[in-house]
């Protein structure tokens, strides 16, 4: 039950970030914000589907399709893809991107199951996002960028634990641990939104 509640918290946080990013798109027509908003819409959908699937499993004898699990993970992975490639398009195939692409086949084909592959892909995308955000911090030296990198790192660790939870099905605590880690990461990612909510910044542009 705690896990499902945390998934729904993830829905709220993801859609909040997506909302601010979409308002930014309307104000500035920025393609970076389009990708950011798209990422968090997919992440929100992913958490929503996974939360609903989890709640469904609490009801005895309710058939819940494994396709829903895959769909939730697919949404989440797509979200991480857009999050990672917001940076990739920004740096236009830098050397870092090439190195990351070389890592890709090694990691991806270690698991035969679709769910495994999606989890590993999520980990790969988040890891790339962490590297690029940390690199951005070295350029702009903004503490909040470092904080976002830490949040992404926490989500990345969560996706890694999620993958482990698929390998070690008998260790129940891994499933809850991965959700907690992802939620802590998402809450850290929520901090720039707080600037609009309580920091005096107005979403319609006037300061």
């Amino acid at each position, binding site marked *: 039950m705690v896990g499902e509640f945390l998934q729904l918290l993830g829905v709220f946080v993801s859609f909040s970030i997506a909302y601010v990013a979409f308002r*930014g798109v309307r104000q500035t027509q920025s393609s970076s*914000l389009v990708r950011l908003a798209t990422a968090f819409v997919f992440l929100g959908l992913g958490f929503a589907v996974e939360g609903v699937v989890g709640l469904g499993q609490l009801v005895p004898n309710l058939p819940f399709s494994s396709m829903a699990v895959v769909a939730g993970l697919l949404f989440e992975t797509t979200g991480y893809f857009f999050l990672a490639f917001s940076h990739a398009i920004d740096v236009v195939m*830098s050397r870092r991107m090439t190195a990351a692409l070389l890592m890709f086949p090694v990691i991806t084909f270690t698991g035969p199951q679709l769910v495994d592959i999606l989890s590993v892909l999520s980990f790969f995308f988040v890891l790339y996002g962490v590297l690029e955000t*940390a690199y951005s911090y070295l350029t702009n030296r903004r503490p909040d960028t470092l904080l976002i*990198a830490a949040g992404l790192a926490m989500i990345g660790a969560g996706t890694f634990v999620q993958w482990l939870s698929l390998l070690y099905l008998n260790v129940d605590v891994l499933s809850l641990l991965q959700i907690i880690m992802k939620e802590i990461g998402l809450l850290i990612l929520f901090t720039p939104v707080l600037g609009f909510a309580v920091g005096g910044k107005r979403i319609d542009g*006037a300061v």
Partner: protein
Amino acid sequence: MAQYRTQVRIIADVLRAARDMNVEGEGVGVTMLLRRGNMSYSRMSKLLSELVGSGLLQELNGEKISKYRISEKGIQFLAAYHNFEDFAQSFGLRL
């Protein structure tokens, strides 16, 4: 690595120049905007027409040359740009 400027960033740079360099309130000439905007004359002319058309800049027709002043809508755009630039930079992105 060289960083290219997006269209929205170029617009923000030109609007900032029109705001910051308009010290005497008589508007800013194209030459000054070119210096701050860092682009060709033909591209700047086209951009200025678009910005005037969209109401972000006001064109002040002088005796010899036109001068430009940021409008209220332009000031609002810059405020929004600043807020969302801050938001994007938090995620390590550029607008």
